């Protein structure tokens, strides 16, 4: 084990939270842990806003003719729901909060390689977020989060430019975060911490950073061109002016498909940590799970054309993209099998984080398998653009990424806040989220197969039963998300004090006190063993 000294217990030991007070100490901090908390507060805000829009949509869809708002308003609701949830919640969620907090701790460093750049990333994110919020207040935007041209460039008279600029700006936050992580993971590891001793969370964050740095710039330039197009009607994407609308889709999906892996890979990393800890086992096939993260990141860039099977893309390109889409399914399947096998002959305990992790595996399995319908050309023709798509990507992004994020928050909350939350409530919330989620999104698979297109403000009456089921599920899901929000806030003040390593977990982050001191470790750690040495033989007394 490492030679770091466990945090000293006593009267309020010095840590990163009480090191300094006042708003300046937060807004000008370069401490990665404090920046992580800045992100945590901001993404929670955006999650609540995006979730609010989702609730309005589900209420509206209870009745076939639409129960709540005008179609124009409904279009703005789903657009802002998508834009906010994807660019301002899901993409930064695990990387910017847990990644920021944990990467230096897990690799035994004092901070990220570029702390000021890290703070700058947060400010960039906030500026981008303000543009988006401005657009919401100034009348909204109705293009869908996909901004398809020529609707967005020529026909929509809503706040397209403001949102495009907002997402463009936020893109640089992702780019700089990814750059920071890559350099940190390469150059700042503690002595003895070789690549194959790294926690799988670090592998996942590394793979995610690859996508951040290589994919996001393309999105940025695409939205830049879109904004120019919207303002000046230049015509690259507008057929009436000689351009080509499919070009926009190619460029957009070059980032936006890999963006799905930005959301799911970190969650996979979190789940690997949690399962190892609560099963007290080394992750089965550690190297393969690690490499599969990188494989997913790379292959994920080769499949974007499967969003375009019915758009008039060449059928030969469709064939290639279909094949590659199936290939990316394989590393995901391998991961699921390996997590499952980790439980074999393990010693499993069921604290809240583990429930979220197991829920993740279940929902991700379903989300991943339903992806096969959409990778296969013939079935995709029928299902593309329907609620089947909506259900599929919510299984991945909400069932997968959000479950992973919540699991990670429950796992590392004692480390982040130094407090414990009520485990019973946490288990209850996990169960409610799981049930509510399935009730919301499973009916949407059937709706899609029946042919109900997405983004419909009103719909033929025969689809009502399933829509009502989905809306009912959404209300349960909403409650499930509120409960953790309440007890996390409660625990910051009233929760019992957490010890340095409440779960008996391995990993350098548990070797320092909870919450960690500003410089992370009182004595820099040296690593002498692999990650997840939970086993019986390797259990010397030093843990």
């Amino acid at each position: 084990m490492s030679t770091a000294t466990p945090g000293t217990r006593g009267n309020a030991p010095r840590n990163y939270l009480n090191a300094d007070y006042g708003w300046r100490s937060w807004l000008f901090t370069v401490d990665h842990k404090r920046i992580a908390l800045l992100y945590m507060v901001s993404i929670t805000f955006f999650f609540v806003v995006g979730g609010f829009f989702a609730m309005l949509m589900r209420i509206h869809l209870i009745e076939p003719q639409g129960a709540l708002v005008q179609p124009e308003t409904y279009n703005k609701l789903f657009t802002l729901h998508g834009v906010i949830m994807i660019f301002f919640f899901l993409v930064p969620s695990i990387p910017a909060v847990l990644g920021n907090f944990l990467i230096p701790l897990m690799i035994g460093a004092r901070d990220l390689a570029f702390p000021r750049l890290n703070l700058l990333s947060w400010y960039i994110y906030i500026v981008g977020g303000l543009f988006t919020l401005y657009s919401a207040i100034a009348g909204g935007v109705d293009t869908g989060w996909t901004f398809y041209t020529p609707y967005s460039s020529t026909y929509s008279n809503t706040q397209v430019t403001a949102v495009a600029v907002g997402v463009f700006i936020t893109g640089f936050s992702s780019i700089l975060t990814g750059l920071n992580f890559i350099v940190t993971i390469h150059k700042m590891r503690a002595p003895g911490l070789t690549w194959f001793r790294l926690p799988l969370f670090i592998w996942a964050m590394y793979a995610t950073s690859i996508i951040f740095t290589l994919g996001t710039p393309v999105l940025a330039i695409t939205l830049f061109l879109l904004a120019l197009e919207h303002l000046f009607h230049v015509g690259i994407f507008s057929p009436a002016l000689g351009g080509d609308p499919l070009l926009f889709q190619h460029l957009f999906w070059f980032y936006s498909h890999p963006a799905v892996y930005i959301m799911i890979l970190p969650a996979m990393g979190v789940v690997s940590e949690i399962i190892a800890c609560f099963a007290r086992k080394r992750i089965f096939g550690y190297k393969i799970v690690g490499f599969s993260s990188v494989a997913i990141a790379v292959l994920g860039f080769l499949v974007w054309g499967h969003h375009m099977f019915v758009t008039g893309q060449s059928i030969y390109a469709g064939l290639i993209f279909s094949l590659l889409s199936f290939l990316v399914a394989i590393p995901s399947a391998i991961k699921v099998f390996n997590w499952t096998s980790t439980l074999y002959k393990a010693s499993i305990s069921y604290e809240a984080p583990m429930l979220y992790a197991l829920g993740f595996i279940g929902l991700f399995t379903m989300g991943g398998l339903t992806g096969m319908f959409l990778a296969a050309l013939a079935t995709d023709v029928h299902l593309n653009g329907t609620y089947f798509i909506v259900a599929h990507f919510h299984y991945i992004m909400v069932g997968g990424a959000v479950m992973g994020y919540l699991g990670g928050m429950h796992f590392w909350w004692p480390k982040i806040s130094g407090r414990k939350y009520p485990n019973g409530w946490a288990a209850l919330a996990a169960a409610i989220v799981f049930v509510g989620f399935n009730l919301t999104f499973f009916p949407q698979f059937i709706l899609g197969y029946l042919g109900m297109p997405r983004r419909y403000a009103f719909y033929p009456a025969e689809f009502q039963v399933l829509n009502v089921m989905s809306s009912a599920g959404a209300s349960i899901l909403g409650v499930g998300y509120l409960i953790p929000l309440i007890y996390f806030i409660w625990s910051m003040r009233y929760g019992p004090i957490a010890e340095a390593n409440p779960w008996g977990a391995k990993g350098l982050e548990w070797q320092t006190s909870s919450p960690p001191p500003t410089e992370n470790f009182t004595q820099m750690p040296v690593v002498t063993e692999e990650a997840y040495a939970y086993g019986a033989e390797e259990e010397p007394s030093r843990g």
Partner: protein
Amino acid sequence: MAETHAESVGLAHQFEDLAQQHDADTLGIWVFLVTEIMFFGGVFASYAILRWLYFTAFAAGSHLLDVRLGAINTVVLLGSSLTMALSVRSAQIGNRRFLVIFLILTMILGGAFLGVKAYEYNQKFVEHIVPSLDWAPEGAILARLAPGGLDHAKLYFFFYFAMTGLHALHMIIGMGLLLWLVLRARKGNFTPQYFAPVEVVGLYWHFVDIVWIFLFPLLYLIGGRY
């Protein structure tokens, strides 16, 4: 919690030593340059598709540019890359005087490049071939553009302005960074052990040069000049 400039000049608190910091800085800038490749890549990809679709129009648009000015600017920018490389070399050997001289030379050459560029932009306004802002080609220019389709020629000029504009923006940022280096170098901030900022800005500057190396044939030399 400011970064502590300890005994070792320029060492940030999160690093163990200057070697580690230098490694991290260089890796960081290379990763950044790769993101820049992808950033420009989006425009290059769009350019590649539309040029392939409307080759005649793109060639016609390209033939309205002045190859001589493009070639001169290429030489100027390559010269600035040379002086930039020599700045880094001066920093490596700890020659503060030459460091400052070469940095200023780089800035002068960069300024010359932007000057020529500004002249070319102005020409486009004179000829009314600036998409959206001043698009009304007439006379001989209209006759040369018409065969490929005016809309498509307009797309070519959009790419001309978008690509050279993005490039010029990078140049301007680079000039700002150079100025910052000059000020720091005059104060004697750099030593043969610590000159990472010079090297990092240098890599950035060379990258901007490389972008131009591709822009020159892609914008000025479409379809030959025979």
